[in-house]
């Protein structure tokens, strides 16, 4: 078939006298079936067979089994990619929540089980923070999670409208809150509650007027409701208390150094400059990151076992063929290479299929109003890299034992094998 005769890098390699086995290239889609590779074959009746082409042919030969194996391994890759994208999204959102509105540090109560349980005296703590050298400005926020408009978990922030952090919010409709009976909604929150500027919202029997809709880069904030700090303190019966302080450091000051000063001056608080320090107040992110590692390891082991099973069966069925290859001069190393390349092919194909599906699954969380206010997956190179590393790892893990077994096949015994 003329269509299969592709001009290739290999042709150039031949010209350079570099066409030896180790540098041959061979890829193809329809070429897999016939073992076509990127090989120059003009004027020939036959197709050059490369080592890689032969590997693909071996996989194609048992296409149902190969497909099912790829599918099985893909499931693990999907879980891993989706999880990685979601976890990275949570890290990005956490980092974003620290630095939103020009904030450099977040201050919480020390020794609490989670950031939501932090409780600080508004006036006393603010005064101590402002006294710390290098602190330029301070904002306060009370955070509460409560049912709103039929949504069971709704993040509500109580803020002071005059704080620097409140002024940096980007409004896409209406205005900022002023009175205690006014609320502003994040873009996702407005969508989830189906509210617009001018509508009213009932929270615990009290009516609030929606005066603004805002947008930030932080998914938690976009899915949140904002009201006056005093109003939320009254509503939650926590007068004079806040959850966190946002701290802006003075120009030229390093946030980390200021955080040390804050913690030294006030032993009852922790100051956080980055998401990596968030475990000082909340282990949730750490736990999720560990869960991600566990999912990755589990996916690798399960995927490796699937590849192991498939390749073991494949080697067993091809005992005689492998014996013939050994008899015609193939070294043990070459046989190992062939089996490992086959298992690597399965792993790579599983990654190629699983990675976009994993992104799709992660993206599905943004379509559901219950989850899209908390999760904003990050689609960058990291999940792809993780899936590739795991794909290669499980291929080697699953392919090595069958490859080793294949290399130990005695040609004499294999030739007698039926």
């Amino acid at each position, binding site marked *: 078939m003329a269509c299969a005769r592709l001009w290739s890098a290999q042709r150039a390699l031949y010209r350079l006298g570099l066409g030896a086995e180790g540098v041959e290239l061979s890829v193809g889609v329809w070429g897999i079936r016939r073992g076509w590779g990127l090989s120059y074959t003009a004027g020939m009746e036959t*197709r050059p*067979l490369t080592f890689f082409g032969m590997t693909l042919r071996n996989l194609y030969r048992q296409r149902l089994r190969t497909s099912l194996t790829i599918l099985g391994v893909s499931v693990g890759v999907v879980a891993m990619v989706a999880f990685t994208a979601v976890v990275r999204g949570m890290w990005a959102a956490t980092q974003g929540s620290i630095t939103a509105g020009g904030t450099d540090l977040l201050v919480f109560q020390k020794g609490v089980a989670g950031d939501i349980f932090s409780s600080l005296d508004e006036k006393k703590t603010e005064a101590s923070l402002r006294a710390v050298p290098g602190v330029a400005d301070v904002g306060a926020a009370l955070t509460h999670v409560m049912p709103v408009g039929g949504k069971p978990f709704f993040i509500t922030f109580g803020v002071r409208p005059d704080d620097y952090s409140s002024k940096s919010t980007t409004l896409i409709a209406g205005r900022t809150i002023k009175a205690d009976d006014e609320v502003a909604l994040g873009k996702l929150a407005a969508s989830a509650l189906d509210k617009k500027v001018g509508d009213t919202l009932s929270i615990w029997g009290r009516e609030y007027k929606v005066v603004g809709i805002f947008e930030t880069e932080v998914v938690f904030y976009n899915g949140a409701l904002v009201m006056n700090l005093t109003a939320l303190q009254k509503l939650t019966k926590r007068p004079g208390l806040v959850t966190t302080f946002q701290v802006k450091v003075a120009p030229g000051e390093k946030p980390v150094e200021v955080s040390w000063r804050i913690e030294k001056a006030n032993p009852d608080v922790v100051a956080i400059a980055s998401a990596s320090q968030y475990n000082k107040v909340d282990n949730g992110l750490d736990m999720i990151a560990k869960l991600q590692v566990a999912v990755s390891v589990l996916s690798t082991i399960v995927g490796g076992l699937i590849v192991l099973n498939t390749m073991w069966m494949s080697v067993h069925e091809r005992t005689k*063929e492998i014996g013939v290859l050994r008899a015609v001069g*193939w*070294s*043990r190393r*070459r046989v190992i290479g062939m089996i490992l390349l086959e298992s690597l092919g399965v792993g790579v194909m599983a990654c190629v299929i699983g990675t976009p599906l994993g992104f799709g699954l992660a993206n599905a969380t943004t379509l559901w109003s219950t989850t899209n206010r908390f999760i904003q997956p990050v689609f960058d190179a990291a999940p792809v890299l993780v899936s590739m590393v795991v794909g290669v790892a499980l291929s080697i893990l699953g392919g090595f034992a069958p490859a080793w077994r294949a290399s130990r096949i005695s040609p004499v015994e294999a030739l007698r094998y039926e």
Partner: protein
Amino acid sequence: MSDAKNANGAQAIRAAGLVKRYQNGQITALDGLDLEVRAGEFVAVCGPSGCGKSTLLNLIAGIDRPDAGELAVFGKRAATLTEVETDALRSGVIGLVFQLHNLLPQLTAAENVQVAMMPGERTAAQRAARAEELLTRVGLAHRMNALPPTLSGGERQRVAVARALANSPKLLLADEPTGALDSKTGGQLFELLGEIQRELGMTLLVVTHDEHIAARAGRVVRILDGKVC
């Protein structure tokens, strides 16, 4: 069929007191066998089933090891060769034809021939060209891209011969190459082996239990109970 002009006096195979036992020594396949084959000779090894013919071939090919005795192929002593060297010997110096063709079913005739050349220095295109050349030589120019299941028994064995010749071996070993063929096809294949041996001047050692076919070789060696008789 004379191979006198090919035989150059150099020793291709030298076996002295070759012993091979199986099943923990309960079965003796070769019992002190002595054999010398000159380079360029066409030798047929005959004998009844179980006399040790195939065992001898396997030992010469380096796919099995003797328990005792001396064996040298083109001066290389089997006992001193490493596994890598033995592999190199099989991929460069020795060509093997089995009783059953043992072709890889998923590969075409030409690709089966190419597989034997993969360990060598040739590029994929060079291997394909060589496969074409050899298949044309064995009369299969029209069947190069056929898969083994679509080939007749004789055609498959011709492909196996082409595969064995792929690396221009100095020694071609054939283990009952006509065993699975009818007498006419078997005769043709034997004729082909003889022609190629004469053309290329290689050493040809054929194991057969068919005395009529063996008679076409330059020399016939008979084995009985693991010894040359």
